[in-house]
Protein backbone atom coordinates (compact mmCIF):
# COMPACT_ATOMS: atom_id res chain seq x y z
CA UNK A 1 0.00 0.00 0.00
CA UNK A 2 1.30 3.40 -0.92
CA UNK A 3 1.19 6.07 1.73
CA UNK A 4 0.22 9.46 0.26
CA UNK A 5 2.90 12.11 0.30
CA UNK A 6 0.67 14.42 2.25
CA UNK A 7 0.58 11.98 5.15
CA UNK A 8 4.34 11.46 5.13
CA UNK A 9 4.87 15.21 5.22
CA UNK A 10 2.76 15.56 8.35
CA UNK A 11 3.59 12.39 10.27
CA UNK A 12 3.83 14.33 13.53
CA UNK A 13 0.15 15.19 13.16
CA UNK A 14 -1.12 11.96 11.64
CA UNK A 15 0.46 9.43 13.98
CA UNK A 16 -1.12 10.68 17.25
CA UNK A 17 -4.39 11.34 15.47
CA UNK A 18 -4.58 7.81 14.10
CA UNK A 19 -3.53 6.34 17.44
CA UNK A 20 -6.32 8.25 19.22
CA UNK A 21 -8.94 7.31 16.65
CA UNK A 22 -7.99 3.65 16.76
CA UNK A 23 -7.78 3.74 20.55
CA UNK A 24 -11.23 5.30 20.79
CA UNK A 25 -12.60 2.79 18.33
CA UNK A 26 -11.16 -0.19 20.19
CA UNK A 27 -12.39 1.07 23.59
CA UNK A 28 -15.89 1.53 22.20
CA UNK A 29 -15.79 -1.80 20.36
CA UNK A 30 -14.83 -3.68 23.52
CA UNK A 31 -17.62 -1.90 25.39
CA UNK A 32 -20.18 -2.76 22.70
CA UNK A 33 -19.19 -6.44 22.83
CA UNK A 34 -19.06 -6.69 26.62
CA UNK A 35 -22.27 -4.82 27.47
CA UNK A 36 -24.97 -6.09 25.17
CA UNK A 37 -27.79 -3.91 26.53
CA UNK A 38 -28.16 -0.67 24.59
CA UNK A 39 -30.59 2.21 24.90
CA UNK A 40 -31.60 1.41 21.35
CA UNK A 41 -30.28 -0.50 18.34
CA UNK A 42 -28.56 -3.86 18.29
CA UNK A 43 -25.05 -5.16 18.56
CA UNK A 44 -24.33 -5.35 14.83
CA UNK A 45 -25.51 -1.79 14.27
CA UNK A 46 -23.28 -0.43 17.03
CA UNK A 47 -20.27 -2.43 15.82
CA UNK A 48 -20.67 -0.93 12.34
CA UNK A 49 -21.16 2.60 13.70
CA UNK A 50 -18.18 2.38 16.05
CA UNK A 51 -15.81 0.84 13.51
CA UNK A 52 -16.71 2.74 10.36
CA UNK A 53 -17.61 6.23 11.54
CA UNK A 54 -14.36 7.71 12.76
CA UNK A 55 -14.42 9.68 16.05
CA UNK A 56 -18.12 10.51 15.88
CA UNK A 57 -19.17 6.84 15.95
CA UNK A 58 -17.60 5.94 19.31
CA UNK A 59 -18.77 9.23 20.83
CA UNK A 60 -22.35 8.69 19.69
CA UNK A 61 -22.17 5.20 21.16
CA UNK A 62 -20.84 6.32 24.54
CA UNK A 63 -23.25 9.24 24.82
CA UNK A 64 -26.47 7.81 23.37
CA UNK A 65 -26.05 4.13 22.77
CA UNK A 66 -24.81 2.47 25.89
CA UNK A 67 -27.37 1.06 28.30
CA UNK A 68 -28.28 2.58 31.64
CA UNK A 69 -26.38 -0.12 33.48
CA UNK A 70 -23.48 0.13 31.08
Amino acid at each position, binding site marked *: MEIPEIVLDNLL*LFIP*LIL*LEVGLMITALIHVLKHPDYKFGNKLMWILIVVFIQ*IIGPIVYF*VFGRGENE
Partner: protein
Amino acid sequence: MKDIYYFTKKELLEVWRTKRLLILLIVFIIFGILSPLMAKLTPEILKSSFGSEIQLTIPEPTSIDSWVQFYKNITQMGIYILVILYSNSVSGEVSRGSLTNLVTKGLNRSAVITSKYLVIAMQGVVAVCLSFSITAAYTAYYFPDNNSPHIVIALVPLLIFILFLSALIVFGSAISSNSFAGLLFTITTIALFYLMNLFENISKFNPISLIGENVSILQGETQLNEQYWAMSISLLATIFLFSAAISVMNKKKL
Protein backbone atom coordinates in the same frame (compact mmCIF):
# COMPACT_ATOMS: atom_id res chain seq x y z
CA MET B 1 -18.97 22.98 52.75
CA LYS B 2 -18.22 19.40 53.74
CA ASP B 3 -21.16 18.23 51.66
CA ILE B 4 -19.66 19.96 48.61
CA TYR B 5 -16.35 18.19 49.15
CA TYR B 6 -17.89 14.72 49.51
CA PHE B 7 -20.34 15.14 46.68
CA THR B 8 -17.64 16.53 44.39
CA LYS B 9 -15.55 13.45 45.15
CA LYS B 10 -18.53 11.33 44.11
CA GLU B 11 -19.03 13.37 40.93
CA LEU B 12 -15.36 13.00 39.95
CA LEU B 13 -15.47 9.26 40.58
CA GLU B 14 -18.59 9.10 38.43
CA VAL B 15 -17.18 10.96 35.41
CA TRP B 16 -14.06 8.83 35.67
CA ARG B 17 -15.74 5.43 35.99
CA THR B 18 -18.46 6.12 33.43
CA LYS B 19 -15.64 7.18 31.05
CA ARG B 20 -17.24 10.57 30.32
CA LEU B 21 -14.12 12.46 31.32
CA LEU B 22 -12.00 10.20 29.11
CA ILE B 23 -14.28 10.72 26.10
CA LEU B 24 -14.29 14.48 26.58
CA LEU B 25 -10.51 14.66 26.87
CA ILE B 26 -9.86 12.39 23.88
CA VAL B 27 -12.21 14.44 21.71
CA PHE B 28 -10.58 17.70 22.72
CA ILE B 29 -7.10 16.25 22.16
CA ILE B 30 -8.24 15.21 18.69
CA PHE B 31 -9.44 18.78 18.07
CA GLY B 32 -6.08 20.04 19.25
CA ILE B 33 -4.30 17.95 16.60
CA LEU B 34 -6.93 18.34 13.92
CA SER B 35 -6.84 22.17 13.91
CA PRO B 36 -3.25 22.66 12.66
CA LEU B 37 -3.66 19.63 10.41
CA MET B 38 -6.71 21.12 8.72
CA ALA B 39 -4.87 24.41 8.28
CA LYS B 40 -2.02 22.55 6.56
CA LEU B 41 -4.24 20.38 4.38
CA THR B 42 -6.77 22.95 3.16
CA PRO B 43 -4.54 24.35 0.36
CA GLU B 44 -3.59 20.81 -0.72
CA ILE B 45 -7.21 19.78 -0.89
CA LEU B 46 -8.12 22.91 -2.85
CA LYS B 47 -5.27 22.21 -5.28
CA SER B 48 -6.26 18.62 -5.88
CA SER B 49 -9.94 19.40 -6.27
CA PHE B 50 -9.32 22.09 -8.89
CA GLY B 51 -6.76 19.98 -10.75
CA SER B 52 -3.23 20.99 -11.61
CA GLU B 53 -4.02 22.69 -14.95
CA ILE B 54 -5.49 25.79 -13.42
CA GLN B 55 -2.84 27.83 -11.75
CA LEU B 56 -4.44 29.11 -8.59
CA THR B 57 -2.59 31.38 -6.30
CA ILE B 58 -3.33 29.81 -2.99
CA PRO B 59 -1.52 31.56 -0.19
CA GLU B 60 0.66 29.48 2.11
CA PRO B 61 -1.19 28.73 5.36
CA THR B 62 -0.09 30.66 8.42
CA SER B 63 -0.55 30.33 12.18
CA ILE B 64 -3.78 32.34 11.80
CA ASP B 65 -5.33 29.53 9.75
CA SER B 66 -4.44 27.06 12.43
CA TRP B 67 -6.13 29.18 15.12
CA VAL B 68 -9.18 29.82 12.94
CA GLN B 69 -9.61 26.05 12.73
CA PHE B 70 -9.10 25.69 16.48
CA TYR B 71 -11.81 28.18 17.43
CA LYS B 72 -14.12 26.78 14.78
CA ASN B 73 -13.73 23.24 16.12
CA ILE B 74 -14.14 24.17 19.75
CA THR B 75 -17.02 26.62 19.42
CA GLN B 76 -18.96 24.75 16.76
CA MET B 77 -18.44 21.21 18.04
CA GLY B 78 -16.48 20.97 21.27
CA ILE B 79 -18.80 22.93 23.52
CA TYR B 80 -21.81 20.95 22.33
CA ILE B 81 -20.14 17.72 23.36
CA LEU B 82 -19.91 19.17 26.86
CA VAL B 83 -23.61 20.07 26.64
CA ILE B 84 -24.62 16.62 25.39
CA LEU B 85 -22.53 14.77 27.97
CA TYR B 86 -23.93 16.67 30.95
CA SER B 87 -27.45 17.77 30.06
CA ASN B 88 -28.84 14.98 32.25
CA SER B 89 -26.49 15.77 35.11
CA VAL B 90 -29.23 16.91 37.54
CA SER B 91 -32.38 15.57 35.86
CA GLY B 92 -30.93 12.08 35.61
CA GLU B 93 -30.35 11.83 39.35
CA VAL B 94 -33.73 13.33 40.18
CA SER B 95 -35.69 11.01 37.90
CA ARG B 96 -33.74 7.91 38.93
CA GLY B 97 -34.18 8.80 42.59
CA SER B 98 -30.55 8.34 43.54
CA LEU B 99 -30.53 11.63 45.47
CA THR B 100 -33.37 10.57 47.78
CA ASN B 101 -31.15 8.47 50.04
CA LEU B 102 -28.50 11.12 50.39
CA VAL B 103 -30.88 14.05 50.90
CA THR B 104 -32.71 12.16 53.67
CA LYS B 105 -29.27 11.70 55.22
CA GLY B 106 -28.87 15.45 55.42
CA LEU B 107 -27.08 16.18 52.14
CA ASN B 108 -27.61 19.85 51.40
CA ARG B 109 -29.37 20.28 48.08
CA SER B 110 -27.29 23.32 47.16
CA ALA B 111 -24.19 21.15 47.51
CA VAL B 112 -25.53 18.93 44.73
CA ILE B 113 -25.77 21.88 42.34
CA THR B 114 -22.45 23.36 43.45
CA SER B 115 -20.55 20.10 43.00
CA LYS B 116 -22.10 19.42 39.64
CA TYR B 117 -21.30 22.93 38.43
CA LEU B 118 -17.72 22.73 39.67
CA VAL B 119 -17.07 19.37 38.05
CA ILE B 120 -18.61 20.34 34.70
CA ALA B 121 -16.86 23.73 34.56
CA MET B 122 -13.57 22.16 35.56
CA GLN B 123 -13.79 19.53 32.86
CA GLY B 124 -14.65 22.16 30.27
CA VAL B 125 -11.72 24.35 31.28
CA VAL B 126 -9.25 21.45 31.45
CA ALA B 127 -10.39 20.08 28.09
CA VAL B 128 -10.14 23.47 26.38
CA CYS B 129 -6.72 24.18 27.90
CA LEU B 130 -5.42 20.77 26.88
CA SER B 131 -6.67 21.23 23.34
CA PHE B 132 -5.24 24.76 23.28
CA SER B 133 -1.79 23.61 24.41
CA ILE B 134 -1.65 20.94 21.71
CA THR B 135 -2.70 23.34 18.96
CA ALA B 136 -0.26 25.94 20.30
CA ALA B 137 2.64 23.46 20.22
CA TYR B 138 1.92 22.25 16.68
CA THR B 139 1.27 25.76 15.44
CA ALA B 140 4.59 26.96 16.82
CA TYR B 141 6.31 24.03 15.08
CA TYR B 142 4.60 24.12 11.68
CA PHE B 143 3.84 27.83 11.34
CA PRO B 144 6.67 29.70 12.99
CA ASP B 145 5.46 33.16 11.98
CA ASN B 146 4.63 36.28 13.97
CA ASN B 147 1.01 36.60 12.87
CA SER B 148 -0.51 35.45 16.18
CA PRO B 149 1.09 37.34 19.03
CA HIS B 150 -1.69 37.16 21.66
CA ILE B 151 -2.79 33.53 21.79
CA VAL B 152 -3.18 33.31 25.58
CA ILE B 153 -5.18 36.52 25.89
CA ALA B 154 -7.47 35.37 23.09
CA LEU B 155 -8.27 32.23 25.10
CA VAL B 156 -9.59 34.18 28.10
CA PRO B 157 -13.03 35.02 26.65
CA LEU B 158 -13.53 31.38 25.61
CA LEU B 159 -12.74 30.18 29.15
CA ILE B 160 -15.21 32.66 30.61
CA PHE B 161 -17.79 31.45 28.12
CA ILE B 162 -17.16 27.87 29.34
CA LEU B 163 -17.89 29.00 32.91
CA PHE B 164 -21.13 30.57 31.69
CA LEU B 165 -22.06 27.56 29.56
CA SER B 166 -21.55 25.19 32.50
CA ALA B 167 -24.00 27.21 34.60
CA LEU B 168 -26.45 27.13 31.69
CA ILE B 169 -26.11 23.34 31.45
CA VAL B 170 -26.69 22.85 35.18
CA PHE B 171 -29.66 25.23 35.25
CA GLY B 172 -31.19 23.66 32.13
CA SER B 173 -30.80 20.23 33.67
CA ALA B 174 -32.29 21.35 36.98
CA ILE B 175 -35.47 22.70 35.40
CA SER B 176 -35.92 19.71 33.08
CA SER B 177 -37.34 16.32 33.81
CA ASN B 178 -35.16 14.47 31.30
CA SER B 179 -31.89 14.86 29.45
CA PHE B 180 -33.53 15.75 26.15
CA ALA B 181 -35.43 18.71 27.61
CA GLY B 182 -32.24 19.96 29.26
CA LEU B 183 -30.35 19.64 25.99
CA LEU B 184 -33.09 21.46 24.14
CA PHE B 185 -33.13 24.30 26.67
CA THR B 186 -29.38 24.86 26.50
CA ILE B 187 -29.19 24.67 22.70
CA THR B 188 -32.20 26.98 22.28
CA THR B 189 -30.70 29.53 24.65
CA ILE B 190 -27.42 29.52 22.74
CA ALA B 191 -29.33 29.88 19.48
CA LEU B 192 -31.19 32.88 20.92
CA PHE B 193 -27.90 34.49 21.91
CA TYR B 194 -26.60 34.00 18.36
CA LEU B 195 -29.78 35.60 17.04
CA MET B 196 -29.41 38.57 19.37
CA ASN B 197 -25.86 39.00 18.16
CA LEU B 198 -27.26 40.20 14.82
CA PHE B 199 -28.11 43.50 16.51
CA GLU B 200 -24.86 45.40 16.75
CA ASN B 201 -25.74 47.50 19.79
CA ILE B 202 -26.53 44.33 21.79
CA SER B 203 -23.56 42.24 20.70
CA LYS B 204 -21.25 44.26 22.93
CA PHE B 205 -23.04 42.78 25.97
CA ASN B 206 -23.79 39.38 24.52
CA PRO B 207 -22.01 36.36 26.09
CA ILE B 208 -21.91 34.73 22.67
CA SER B 209 -19.50 37.43 21.44
CA LEU B 210 -16.93 35.82 23.74
CA ILE B 211 -16.55 33.00 21.23
CA GLY B 212 -16.63 35.17 18.12
CA GLU B 213 -13.68 37.54 18.37
CA ASN B 214 -10.93 35.24 19.59
CA VAL B 215 -8.97 35.14 16.32
CA SER B 216 -9.21 38.89 15.98
CA ILE B 217 -7.89 39.27 19.53
CA LEU B 218 -4.92 36.98 18.98
CA GLN B 219 -3.95 38.96 15.90
CA GLY B 220 -4.10 42.13 17.92
CA GLU B 221 -6.94 43.62 15.87
CA THR B 222 -9.37 43.59 18.77
CA GLN B 223 -8.36 44.48 22.29
CA LEU B 224 -9.46 42.31 25.20
CA ASN B 225 -10.91 45.34 27.00
CA GLU B 226 -13.45 45.77 24.19
CA GLN B 227 -15.08 42.64 25.60
CA TYR B 228 -15.18 43.69 29.24
CA TRP B 229 -18.94 44.22 29.07
CA ALA B 230 -19.64 40.82 27.58
CA MET B 231 -17.32 39.18 30.11
CA SER B 232 -18.93 40.93 33.08
CA ILE B 233 -22.43 40.13 31.86
CA SER B 234 -21.43 36.49 31.36
CA LEU B 235 -20.03 36.19 34.86
CA LEU B 236 -23.12 37.85 36.32
CA ALA B 237 -25.33 35.52 34.30
CA THR B 238 -23.25 32.60 35.59
CA ILE B 239 -23.91 33.61 39.19
CA PHE B 240 -27.59 34.19 38.44
CA LEU B 241 -28.09 30.84 36.68
CA PHE B 242 -26.19 29.05 39.43
CA SER B 243 -28.32 30.60 42.20
CA ALA B 244 -31.49 29.98 40.22
CA ALA B 245 -30.52 26.32 39.81
CA ILE B 246 -30.09 26.05 43.58
CA SER B 247 -33.52 27.52 44.32
CA VAL B 248 -35.12 25.24 41.71
CA MET B 249 -33.37 22.30 43.34
CA ASN B 250 -34.49 23.32 46.83
CA LYS B 251 -38.11 23.09 45.74
CA LYS B 252 -37.74 19.87 43.77
CA LYS B 253 -39.78 16.87 44.77
CA LEU B 254 -37.49 13.91 45.14
